[in-house]
């Protein structure tokens, strides 16, 4: 009993595999998740490998892995690192799932409920607090009674905005004229108008008060960015005077211009009017962006190349999506006012999206030849970006002019991808189901967005679109995650098989192959002194013959365990033959080695009551003085001398 305790103690400190001897019969019952061991006079021990697992702070679970051994034979105990050692040893085999002094589920639940209750009460009370809102809601839409001129030709009078106009060519000025109300709705009021890719000149009573044009942008075609709200202060003297807004768009003439209705009110209220429906986009965009960055940052940790690539491209897709959502939303204007730079980002993302998607498709699903086609097509989009960029330099085209076309092509590309992966799925590539599902959702949302864009409708809130996008990315992420875990498992399995190939199953020491390898390694590259121990169990063969192999195995085992507890941490032990062992002790000098030998010999002396004795020989290998093979031979000779001496002693006693 004492010895077993010592073994367990030493093993448990190191963690890992420990062996012990089982005395008596035990039966394991399982009720639900609980395991019970009970001592039984008749039933055999059903197994020899037991996993003791710590479930939580004070409870353990026991799992029987393999059976076949009977009374008095070796059992194998697998222990996790830092398991609660003392309690377990004291309990010996009377292992149950111990419900110690753990905080009860009931008391924790009651506390949680109480906390929740008190929190709800405080929120209820505090939400009743009357606070003046930031936005005083003083704006009103200024939509009626506009006179519209195009190229100084009257188009409509007394029109109600928003109004859709078809413009014959790029740069045709549109002027809308109205009379400001008298009195103005609030003092110090502001007129807010949302315009896309257009200059704006505002004059009141013939005096210019605001101008936005592409003064500093040295493009050949002026580029004024995407939809942005303009806030124009209306001076007090302007009440009742004529206001005229002159716009000249840089978008292609094919697109119909939508003139939206301005709002009149305090600047704060008009600002909130513009941004209020866009807060969610800000958060969705940021979430996508963040997840993308996180995936990119995590990808170097993935070991398998295909998985790493799929996570990387997933991250890029997500990042691009985040950029798109953030840059298309209006709430970005809180942080920066330039509308053109975000559009640049949007365009880049739109043109690169097919490539990222194709790369992700290839690395995550391995679709074979189809992937090559998609990758080639996606390269066309990238070329398109370069071509359109060059055209923009020469002043022929703007990136924003191509957006509807590219959006449409992207839609087609996605549709093709969808069809191809459906075909592949039908042919038996089961993994593609998740891709098809995600793509169906993505396709739907992208199609919708493009359709709305082409028909000139600007979505105020695209929340549900973003929800569907999130859903689709979640599906894809689960796929990526599943790939990673499954190949991770394969990797671990491989490594463990390798490890097992070099381990002697009975003793847990290195086997002959490991020994050969280590010997070569030491011979080649070692510099410090190494103590070598050669050991041989006496009379193992006779024990095997008289009491059976199982008994012999048990003896080997016991010896290995005891030896391990005697050796220093850095020692490497090998079982190189049936009853032969070699130990290398690195960083050891002659006196330490002698002490170690003494300790081992005295522990396994013939009269020590262990039922077997061990002959030990040693030598010190110093790289400058000889080679390792001769040192091992010297240790062997020493061991045989020891053996002969032991036999002589035994016969003289007899």
């Amino acid at each position, binding site marked *: 009993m004492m010895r077993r305790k010592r073994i367990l103690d030493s093993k448990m400190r190191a963690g890992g595999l420990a062996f012990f001897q089982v005395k008596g019969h035990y039966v394991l019952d399982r009720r639900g998740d609980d395991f019970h061991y009970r001592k039984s006079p008749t039933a055999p021990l059903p197994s020899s490998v037991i*996993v003791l697992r*710590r*479930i*939580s*702070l*004070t409870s353990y679970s026991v799992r029987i*892995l*393999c*059976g*076949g051994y009977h009374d008095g034979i070796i059992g194998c105990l*697998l222990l996790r*690192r*830092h398991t*609660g050692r003392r309690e377990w040893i004291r309990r010996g085999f009377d292992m149950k799932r111990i419900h110690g002094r753990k905080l009860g589920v009931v008391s924790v639940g009651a*506390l949680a409920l109480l906390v929740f209750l*008190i929190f709800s*009460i*405080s929120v209820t*009370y*505090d*939400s*009743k*607090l*009357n*606070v*003046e809102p*930031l936005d005083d809601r003083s704006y009103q839409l200024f939509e009626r009674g506009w006179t519209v001129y195009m190229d100084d030709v009257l188009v409509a009078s007394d029109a109600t905005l928003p109004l859709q106009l078809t413009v014959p060519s790029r740069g045709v000025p549109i002027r809308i004229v109205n009379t400001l109300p008298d009195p103005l709705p609030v*003092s*110090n009021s502001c007129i807010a108008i949302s315009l896309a890719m257009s200059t704006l000149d505002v004059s009141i009573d013939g005096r210019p008060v605001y101008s*936005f044009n592409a*003064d*500093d942008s040295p493009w050949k075609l002026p580029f*004024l*960015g995407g939809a942005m709200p303009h806030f124009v202060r209306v001076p*007090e003297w302007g009440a009742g005077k004529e206001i005229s807004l002159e716009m000249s768009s840089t978008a292609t003439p094919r697109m119909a211009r939508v003139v939206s209705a301005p709002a009149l009110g305090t600047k*704060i209220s008009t*600002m909130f009017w513009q941004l209020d429906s866009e*807060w969610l986009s800000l958060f969705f965009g*940021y*979430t996508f962006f*963040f*997840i993308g960055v996180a995936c990119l940052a995590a990808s170097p940790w993935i070991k398998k190349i295909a998985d790493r690539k799929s996570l990387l491209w997933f991250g890029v897709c997500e990042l691009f999506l985040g950029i798109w959502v953030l840059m298309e939303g209006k709430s970005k204007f*809180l*942080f920066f*006012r*330039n*509308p*053109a*730079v975000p559009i*640049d*980002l949007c365009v*880049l993302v739109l043109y690169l999206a097919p490539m990222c998607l194709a790369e992700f498709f290839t690395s995550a699903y391995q679709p074979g030849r189809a992937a090559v086609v998609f990758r080639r097509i996606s390269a066309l989009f*990238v070329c398109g970006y*370069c071509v359109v960029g*060059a055209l923009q*330099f020469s002043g022929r085209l703007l990136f924003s002019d191509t957006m509807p076309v590219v959006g449409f092509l992207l839609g087609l590309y996605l549709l093709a991808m969808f069809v191809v992966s459906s075909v592949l799925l039908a042919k038996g590539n089961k993994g593609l189901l998740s891709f098809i599902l995600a793509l169906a959702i993505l396709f739907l949302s992208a199609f919708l967005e493009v359709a709305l864009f082409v028909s000139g409708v600007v979505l105020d809130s695209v929340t549900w679109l973003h929800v569907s996008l999130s859903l689709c990315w979640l599906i894809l992420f689960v796929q990526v995650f599943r790939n990673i875990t499954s190949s*991770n*498992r394969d990797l671990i399995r491989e490594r*463990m*098989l390798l490890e097992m190939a070099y381990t002697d199953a009975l003793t847990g020491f290195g086997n002959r192959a490991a020994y050969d390898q280590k010997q070569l390694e030491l011979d080649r590259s070692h510099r410090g002194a190494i103590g070598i121990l050669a050991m041989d169990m006496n009379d193992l063969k006779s024990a095997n013959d008289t009491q059976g192999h199982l008994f012999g195995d048990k003896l080997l085992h016991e010896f290995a365990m005891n030896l391990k507890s005697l050796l220093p941490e850095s020692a490497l032990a090998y079982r190189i033959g049936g009853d032969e062992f070699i130990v290398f002790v690195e960083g050891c000098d002659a006196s330490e080695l002698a002490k170690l030998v003494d300790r081992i010999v005295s522990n396994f002396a013939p009269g020590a009551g262990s039922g077997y004795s061990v002959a030990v020989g040693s030598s010190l290998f110093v790289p400058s003085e000889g080679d390792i093979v001769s040192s091992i031979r010297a240790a062997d000779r020493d061991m045989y001398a020891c053996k002969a001496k032991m036999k002589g002693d035994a016969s003289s006693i007899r």
Partner: protein
Amino acid sequence: MAIGRRCPGWMLFLVGAICVLSLFLVSVLFDSRLQVEPIDDGTCVLFDTGWSLFVDGELKAEEMVLPMSVRVPRRSSVVRIDNMLPDPLPTSNACLSIGLGMSLLEVFVDGVSVYRFDAEGSPWRLPFYGGRMPHFVRIADDAAGKPISLVMESSAASFVSRNLSAPVLGTKVSALFMHANQEWLSLFFGFTFSIVGIACLFGVVFVKRVEDRRSLKSFGALELVLGIWVLTQGRSKFLFVRNPAVPMDFSCLALFLLPVCLAGFYSHTYRTEKSGDLFLRISFVFPVAYCVIGILQLCGVLLYCDTLMFAGAALGLYVFSMLLVSILHLARGARSLLSFVVALSLLFASVLADEILLVEGVVLDNATLLHLAMTIGGIVMFGQSLRNITSGNRGEIRDRMLFELAYTDALTGLGNRALYDKKIIELEQERKCATGIIVADINDFKVANDAFGHDHGDHVLQEIAQELREMVPPGVFLFRTGGDEFVIMLPGIDARRLASLESELYSRFHDTERIVVAIGSYLYAPANDESMIDAICLADDAMYRDKAWLKGRSRQG
């Protein structure tokens, strides 16, 4: 030639990348020059000099400069500050913006009340005005040069000194941006923490081991709590919610739950036994205190905000002791605790800094550094959690492999003797359905082994195992029970199908040149009140009869 073909593809990619990047940079460069009028017109001026201070109607200071801290005798002491509005005002339609914590505010211009914020609508016994919030008061154009006075009555405990910040005078938009501008980063940090927290809580579903699940759960809760704290403490929240009291409630809850999450993470991730248990136990004092204080607040004795300082100090102490204990464990050799010590020292440093500044009465304008420390700490702890999960995963696979190894015959991949013994006991205990038993034994295996060598014998065994595997229906157990003995157990089979399978085996193994296998079968029916062992013996007998017949046949042949 192959290299020549591959090289352009690689080069093409590089050229494409450079093209795209340079085009993008050029367009950004051009477009960033576009001049746009900013939303914030920058007309704000600090209105910080020349104030006179009255406490409970008594003049305390004149010509003073804000910000300053004022000590008040009682909770309900009234603080008033007076000044003259500039003439002319910095803009027309100006707005006075004042950041105040937990205080009633009434603004008088020329003796006329123009703005009032009190706890109207909140039915607490003690009025509660929430945390620090900016007030925006419109100043009429004709008020230039007139006297202005601000009357404040705080709901915080009287020993907390009142911090009066300098008001800002300008347009409302510019004042708003002045208040929120330094806080944008907090908004994003807080939101990031919350997303990570929620993602971890969702991710728990995919983690198999109980310990890892708990560790990840605690980590998620910790991040979420931190996120809520950062989001609700920052000022940019006022863009979305104007009520200052509700975020304060969230902050309080987060503060009192933080120790539980931290201790949960500590004990489930690092398995520090006693100390983890102890910390977990102590941490439950905090939610209990939350409940007690909540009840006191309901009775009108105390406000949460009064206890915020003590709770913060207690939290600091708690975290500090945790740090000390884990350093102690680390010194004793628990290497994994290094990550916790690093993360905790970062967190502790940031909490300590926060606390000191709170006590000093300094309100942090920009807590970016603090949040950065939290982020790094979070990443370090997450790394540890992840490492545990992967290593646990490895352990599980190891267990499963050991199981497989222990029950599998290495040569043939069939079940071994141990599994066979186990299965017998199982089937006997279940006693559910009839089980067909087929015993197969290779004739003269020993002779062949001796004549052709062990390699040949091994090959024969593998071949037979493979053929058996192909012939039997699914859901059947195959064992190699001895050197040349195989047993097939077919649960849920009837006599007819057993007979047909047996004849199939006969035709396959009886009339071959090389290997002849003797086969015997028996249908074990639990209803017949016989034991499994008996049934196997009967199958064995059948096999021996077959063997004898085969031997007789070969002798005749």
